[in-house]
């Protein structure tokens, strides 16, 4: 049984169709990349899965249970965690507190603050933020905040981790570090990962399967090699030969 099933999801905002006719399956342990031009509907899809938005129609099933239309905290308790494209740390709280809160709620629902902090310490080590544990989250650099965002989501003990453009704004060496970190985290915590990304080389490296969205619809799906040579994808990203003014297609 698939871990996550997305069935015929459609989302309208008034007259604008953000997502249409999207079907997708994610199996336990996979690393899925979700790519597409800006405005393709990727973040909207994330929001729908996590419960931040309600779909106009269609259903989403996670671990056998229907989660579409449920509030974000209920979805989180079932084991789905997401990061935000524009990071949202709890600025006035310390890094440690940020993670501890994740551990106390989410899927883990840790009741003891000591236990929550213990788990937080563990994850802080994995993301390399141990020496910043007592700092205010707002004092971190962007790269640090991105790590915090991922770490906090991880603290909730999810089965599915959804990363929304976590690599944006990072330098090439930071990207390499991040890619390695994601791989390690996935292995250590037995995660299934869906990542929305624009940094294509990272996506090609990390993900076994890629889904391409364009104008809210899925136009391609397959391995990195398949997707990068798919004519529909190339047209979506680069345009047709006519618009480019060359004879290449």
């Amino acid at each position, binding site marked *: 049984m698939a871990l996550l099933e997305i069935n015929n999801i459609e989302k309208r905002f008034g007259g604008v169709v953000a997502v249409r006719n999207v079907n997708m399956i994610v199996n336990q342990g996979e690393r899925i990349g979700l790519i597409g031009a800006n405005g393709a509907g990727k973040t909207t899809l994330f929001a729908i899965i996590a419960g931040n938005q309600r779909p106009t129609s269609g259903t989403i099933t996670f671990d056998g249970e229907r989660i579409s239309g449920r509030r974000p905290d209920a979805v989180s308790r079932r084991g789905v965690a997401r990061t935000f494209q524009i990071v*949202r740390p*709890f600025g006035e*709280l310390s890094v440690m507190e940020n993670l501890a809160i*994740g551990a106390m709620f989410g899927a883990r629902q840790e009741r003891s603050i000591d236990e929550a*902090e213990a788990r937080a310490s563990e994850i802080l080590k994995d993301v390399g933020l141990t020496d910043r544990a007592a700092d205010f989250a707002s004092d971190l650099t962007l790269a640090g905040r991105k790590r915090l965002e991922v770490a906090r989501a991880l603290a909730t003990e999810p089965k599915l981790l959804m990363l929304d453009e976590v690599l944006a704004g990072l330098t090439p060496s930071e990207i390499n570090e991040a890619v390695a970190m994601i791989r390690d985290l996935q292995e250590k915590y037995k995660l299934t990962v869906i990542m929305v990304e624009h940094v294509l080389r990272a996506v090609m490296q990390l993900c076994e399967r890629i889904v391409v969205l364009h104008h809210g619809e899925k136009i391609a799906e397959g391995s990195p090699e398949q997707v990068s040579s798919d004519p529909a994808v190339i047209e979506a990203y680069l345009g047709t030969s006519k618009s480019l003014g060359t004879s290449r297609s």
Partner: protein
Amino acid sequence: MIRGLDKITGTLLVALFALIVLWPTFASNYEIGVGFDTMRWGALALSWVVLSGMTGYFSFGHVVFFGLGAYIVAVTWLVLPWWGGVLLSGVGAGILAIMVGYPCLRVRGPYFVILTFGVAELVKFIVINIEAGLSMSGRMLLGGPSTITLYYSMGVLAVLAFILAFWVRQSRFGAGLRAIREDEDAAETLGIPVHRYKMTAFVLSAIIPGMVGGLFVIRGAFFEPPNVFDPRVSLTMIAMAVMGGSDDPRGTVVGVIFLALLSQYLWANFPQLYAIIVGLLLVIFVLAAPDGMWGRWQAAKRRSRSMQTQDS
């Protein structure tokens, strides 16, 4: 995470507790009244902090619970023993909080502020109209308990309010509330049941003010709607919490003592200027010390601690 008390604060609190218990033994009747009023503000401000300090949802109409509690006691004066009326006030305030909280907590920021203020005014006018309909221009509450009994009853409420505020802050529940204050949507995405938590905080913050209102009106032996639904009560609660420190109940206590003493002085000498000065102080503190006096002190402590570790 936020933990227990350090030795200094712990000692100070024990001393304060002892002072409260022993006060009537050496204080004059007037001074016992001052103690009663100070603890009244303490109970109110600390309750306010449980909601607004922790979640960031500023209730500008919290006097509504105080007023409703007073009304319940006034209305049941001849039917229930005084302490029964007071307990019922707490229950009534809690019920009102459930009714009001459900719609109000759906909106945030300034909308919540205006809404809570509006609800307080609405309830005030409803009560005024009910009393007018019953041809009551005020109710006498004769034959109440002694000043000392009232003093210690208020003391119980004040101590309870402190314990509540303190416990909330330290608990998992409180951590959730603070996350809501920081970023409600991110908090919900992390699994915090924001609606349930906000409602709980709202109801918890209402019960003690209800009982405080009951005791207040017993002491004055007279009930009059504009008096107990006076928006200046909300202003004072907020000012005390803000000036002392609305994140930490210990700070709130500082703010209460500061403003209560100041108020005594102002009421005795310049009653007209009272609200003006409190308003002015509120503005100055928000601009100069938004974390309150306590927050300022804590920040200074933290800075000196980090400087120490830098040196070593």
